[in-house]
């Protein structure tokens, strides 16, 4: 056997380090989106397909905001306001439609959220047209990290994940609203019996979750083509992350996002033809080991 031939195919350390950071960057986007979804699914107990739509809207709105402002400062303002616009939209959707389905059978919930996905797809076509959009990279160039070269913009992504995790941790454990969220997740009726309007808690959680979806969409916007299908692409992975990580468990979502991101980027390296199925393989394996999710689920 010719070991040197095998060894020569083995990627060098720099490539590995590079793939590691690429995987981490993707993991962070996935985490930001999945964290929003896991909070919504954990507290509201609905399977919310529109989460991917709000992610996509985040990207399109970021594109428009950046274009409207022009220059390199456009993206930074978009980062600030595009997720807020998405959150405002989600507030309208929650107060007009979503709140009617919380007590409905799961099939009705799926029907409404899926119908909303289709309706928003058409709306996006009307507003932004059918051609893909792309956005200028706000910080072009690359940097060297641990010997690997990496687009500078990925630093933003690498920072976003921990910031969101920290922010959510603080919100959930230290603020009154966070405590109310955790209480509502386990016993909504009892929350009402304490004189707290659980409908308002639901609305706040939905808006928070969609804010994070919009933030994820804004963050990904400069790195990819902004297209109609991108919502569906992320929602499948995000749902997998939520289920495998434990419904409602932000830390579970963080860990599984890492596993997915790293798994995918190394998968591409070693078995490129199977890269697409990697998340599913990982999810299936983890679910076989722990069917109720890696970490504690609130469902």
């Amino acid at each position: 056997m010719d070991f040197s031939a095998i060894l020569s195919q083995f990627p060098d350390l720099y490539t590995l380090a590079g793939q590691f950071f690429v995987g981490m960057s993707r993991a962070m986007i996935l985490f930001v989106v999945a964290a929003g979804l896991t909070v919504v699914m954990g507290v509201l107990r609905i399977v919310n397909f529109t989460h991917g739509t709000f992610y996509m809207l985040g990207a399109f709105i970021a594109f428009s905001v950046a274009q409207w402002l022009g220059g390199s400062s456009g993206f930074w303002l978009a980062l600030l306001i595009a997720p807020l616009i998405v959150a405002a939209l989600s507030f309208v959707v929650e107060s007009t439609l979503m709140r009617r389905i919380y007590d409905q059978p799961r099939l009705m919930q799926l029907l409404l959220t899926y119908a909303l996905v289709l309706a928003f797809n058409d709306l996006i076509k009307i507003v932004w047209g059918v051609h893909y959009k792309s956005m200028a990279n706000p910080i072009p160039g690359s940097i060297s990290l641990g010997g690997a070269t990496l687009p500078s913009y990925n630093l933003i992504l690498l920072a976003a994940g921990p910031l969101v995790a920290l922010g959510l941790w603080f919100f959930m454990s230290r603020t009154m609203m966070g405590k109310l969220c955790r209480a509502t997740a386990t016993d909504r009726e009892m929350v009402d019996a304490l004189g707290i309007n659980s409908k308002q808690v639901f609305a706040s959680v939905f808006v928070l979750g969609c804010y994070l979806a919009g933030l994820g969409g804004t963050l990904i916007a400069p790195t990819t083509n902004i297209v109609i299908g991108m919502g569906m692409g992320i929602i499948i992975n995000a749902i997998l992350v939520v289920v495998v990580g434990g419904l409602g468990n932000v830390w579970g979502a963080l860990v599984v996002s890492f596993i997915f991101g790293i798994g995918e980027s190394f998968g591409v390296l070693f078995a490129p033809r199977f890269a697409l199925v990697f998340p599913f393989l990982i999810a299936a394996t983890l679910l076989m080991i722990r069917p109720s999710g890696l970490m504690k689920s609130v469902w």
Partner: protein
Amino acid sequence: MIEVKDIHTYYGLSHILFGVSLQVNKEEIVCILGRNGAGKTTTMRSIMGLTPPRQGSIIFKGEDITRMPVYKIARLRMGFVPDNRRIFPDLTVGENLEIASKGNSQGDGWDKERVYRLFPALKAIDSRKGGFCSGGEQQMLSIARALMGNPEFLLLDEPTEGLAPLVVRELMEQIGRLREEGLSILMAEQNVKSALKLADRVYVIDRGQIRFQGSVTELEDNEEIRKKYLLV
């Protein structure tokens, strides 16, 4: 304080309460006694708005609350201590109390310190998760949590269920102290003996109907009712 007038309550299609009427006056402890499945919990849930009656009416402090949303009823200063305690398991003892103070904006009256003075055992476990508390601790916490909303009227659903006799005695003392603080209480019980020590008046319920109402001595003298509906 509260007047329940001829209510009929259903769970889906099953008709559970058949014209229940009762009344609790200011600073009174009223007991509703009955066997398992008699309709005590359903009466409590009807009053709290969790399972609103289809017929009849409930008047609380002069206001018709029959079809009011649960959280609004609670804000009129009605406290609810459910039969299975329903402590938020992922929240600490302290957090369980904190969120309960959110429901009532009236800042006077009960706060964490005062609640801990009534239940000193809770103070020691302030940072323990609700799910890790013992049955007795959960029962105290459930009452303490209801107090945080500064209730004038308290619904206590089988507070002594599943507790050791010593704990029951202590709990009953604490409930007695609440009446001295000016609260009115409607308490459901199967544990007739301990309940009767506290109660001012008694209702006996069976199969969704009130079968007896009167004072404690009147019930003690009425062997027929006790034999028929209470098995004591």
